[in-house]
């Protein structure tokens, strides 16, 4: 059960600077913690978030241990044309989630 929240403005004017906000549910287990019996809790984190606009990569973030659970990442871009933003989160243990959002540029 994985939930993601994406916030992309539905409409923008050509040349507007827009903020894109993403929130992905993930425990982000650092790999440095131990259980009560001393065993290491294996690392389980998201390692990268990529955002593509109409197939072209416009933003990428690499994540490392010590990022808080449920990472919230926001960034800015310039709206130039209508199209689709695609988001891809990749992580440990084969974690792969995608989401997308459309924008109309007038």
């Amino acid at each position: 059960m994985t939930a993601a929240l994406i916030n992309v403005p539905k409409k923008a004017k050509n040349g507007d600077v827009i903020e894109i906000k993403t929130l992905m549910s993930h425990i982000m287990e650092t790999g440095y913690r131990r259980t009560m019996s001393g065993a290491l809790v294996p690392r389980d984190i998201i390692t990268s978030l990529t955002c593509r606009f109409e197939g072209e990569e416009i933003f990428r973030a690499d994540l490392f241990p010590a990022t808080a659970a449920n990472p919230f990442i926001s960034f800015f871009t310039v709206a130039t044309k209508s199209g689709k933003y695609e988001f891809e989160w990749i992580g440990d243990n084969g974690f792969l989630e995608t989401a997308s959002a459309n924008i109309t540029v007038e």
Partner: protein
Amino acid sequence: MRVAATIVLASLLLAAGIILRPLIATEIPSAERRSGYTFMAPDTKAMQDDDTANPGMLGVLDGETLWNRKVGSAGKSCADCHNDARESMKGVAARYPAYDKTLGQPVNLEQRINLCRVRHQDATPLPYERHDLLALSAFLAEQSRGMPITPDATAELQPFVAKGRDLFMHRQGQLNLACTNCHDDNWDKHLAGSAVTQGIPNGYPIYRLEWQSLGSLQRRLRNCITGMRAQNYDFGAPELVELELYLMSRARGMPVETPAVRP
């Protein structure tokens, strides 16, 4: 002589003040009640206000999935009986904990979900503080967001509210503190840099940044009891439910904020 009399009078007043101080512990007047929200930094407030930045909303989304999932040997989902939660569950969380006639005692929202699972879905109860139960209760409570807290007025419930109030006022633990010593007498002060706050539980389950997850009111209460170095209660213990009842009666009329974000 007059100077001596003044000194005696002053020290008497001082002594009276010190002695009387524990006795003046009173509940917060309703006009002065403040949600924990008002004590937060602007950044944390912004996080709660924006549904796409509030991590508690991830739990609400998962809760909606669980609401529609068929479970147990009865093969029924919550939605099969209660239909659309947006209609049927509106205002429900705002009156919990409520009285359960069969058990003859109050049950909180988490216990109600589990009773429903056992009685109607033939499923096993969900464990306390695990993601599924928190997500379901967050989804249910979110249906009451913005609505005033209206405690269950059932007459049978009132002795339990009184017991909760007694526990709130009762000094306990190695530090010999009662809840009231902080949350009635010193809510406008700080404890190690954190605001003390008034103990108004209007946003549970909350997403607490320190926990990095959703957590129930009982988890918060157990935190406080540990901090008082007192003997703790298990999740679901009647004492904690009674305390919840009393706290919700303090929060009467205040709007539900679930899923609230707290530092």
